[in-house]
């Protein structure tokens, strides 16, 4: 086991790439004084090239911090973040989509307590959500949406059959795979946030259900489309 087991597979291809350029001649004869002088000038150019340092993109360290925060599963230091290893350009796109969705989500979260149908079964006596569960409010819409994207925290719906039953109760196609799931607390009420793809980029169906959601008992907390 070496430090670089993680990378050895990739590096194994490096020789192939490099050898594409190694099949030819050995290079100019460095013993020739004029050639040596030319090579020295070349190395000086390269050193000068190194000294002329282009500026690192502003905000790159912040982008890295956010990616690492997402990787650690913690809230990002500020603003909008993204999943591990995501492209910065994807993050920018996600930021736009999240901002666009924020206003819609705020309205959704603000209305969560009044959407149960009158004859719906009583919410289950689910255990308390685990520590660190996001507490959502209408004023924290961006974080609420981000909390679910890319996560796989299904909580009481972790069983595939139970999840499928819950999704079917909401008319979701059986082959639909959530783009994220997170146990949440919405205005003091525990639930599971399911982020469902819609087939349109940057547009999701946000479904928050009571942990007791089951076939015939959707126990919908909220259900809306977000994004453009």
């Amino acid at each position, binding site marked *: 086991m070496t430090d670089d087991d993680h990378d050895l597979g990739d590096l194994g291809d490096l020789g192939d790439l490099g050898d594409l*350029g190694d*099949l030819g001649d050995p290079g100019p004869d460095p013993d020739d004084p004029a050639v040596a002088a030319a090579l020295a000038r070349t190395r000086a150019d390269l050193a000068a090239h190194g000294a002329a340092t282009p500026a690192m993109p502003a905000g790159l360290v912040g982008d890295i911090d956010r990616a690492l925060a997402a990787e650690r599963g913690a809230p990002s230091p500020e603003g909008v973040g993204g999943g591990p290893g995501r492209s910065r350009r994807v993050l920018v796109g996600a930021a736009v989509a999240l901002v666009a969705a924020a206003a819609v989500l705020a309205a959704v979260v603000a209305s969560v307590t009044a959407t149960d149908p009158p004859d719906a079964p009583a919410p289950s006596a689910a255990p308390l959500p685990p520590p660190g569960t996001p507490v959502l409010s209408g004023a924290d819409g961006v974080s609420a949406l981000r909390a679910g994207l890319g996560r796989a925290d299904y909580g009481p719906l972790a069983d595939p059959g139970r999840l499928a039953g819950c999704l079917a109760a909401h008319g979701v196609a059986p082959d639909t795979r959530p783009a994220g799931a997170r146990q949440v607390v919405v205005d003091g009420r525990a639930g599971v946030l399911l982020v469902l793809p819609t087939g349109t980029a940057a547009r999701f169906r946000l479904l928050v259900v009571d942990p007791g959601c089951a076939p015939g008992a959707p126990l919908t907390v909220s259900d809306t489309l977000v994004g453009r």
Partner: protein
Amino acid sequence: MPEPDPRSDRELLAAHVAGQAGAFDELVRRYAERLWLLAFRTLDHREDAADAVQETFVSALRSAHRYRGESEVSTWLHRITVNACLDRIRRRRTRAAEPLAGHDLPTPRDGIDDHLTRLTVADALATLPDGQRLAVVLVDVHGFSITETAAILGVREGTIKSRCARARGRLALLLGHLRPHDETGGNAGGAGGVQSTSGPIRPARRGGGP
């Protein structure tokens, strides 16, 4: 401005693995810029370079617990960055025969056939094969030793030396410090067809590289 963290790279990585908050972030502060420079000079594309560096740190975070101290932390991080860059190069080649810089770059033959052409260092580097470019960038631009570069690229030191020699010869042509021997010199891509302002040129040794 906060005081510089006095801990070594190894100490920081060990502290991170032990669960100490902020230790890995200090490594990010130390290495983000130099890794970005390496990625930028390898990929010749700012956004791709930034993506590669971000990927480097996420990958390092994931695999930090597997670090055994057999190489320097710096070498380890540079190696991950090289991998991230090579992945991008491969993807570009898979998508299309796309020039590295995202625009039309001169090929080595273009530069050598046109005796009057003098390229910028960046464009000349972009014409090199990947292995040569990485070797010469690490050694002559970033100042790594042959030993360090061999460790980063995962090849023998002799391979680094030969790649650097070929790269410098080709760059000398492209930068105008050497000129082609003559129009019929044949080997536009190598030493056999070039000469300095005076003196003989060693004949090319086709396929004889180490």
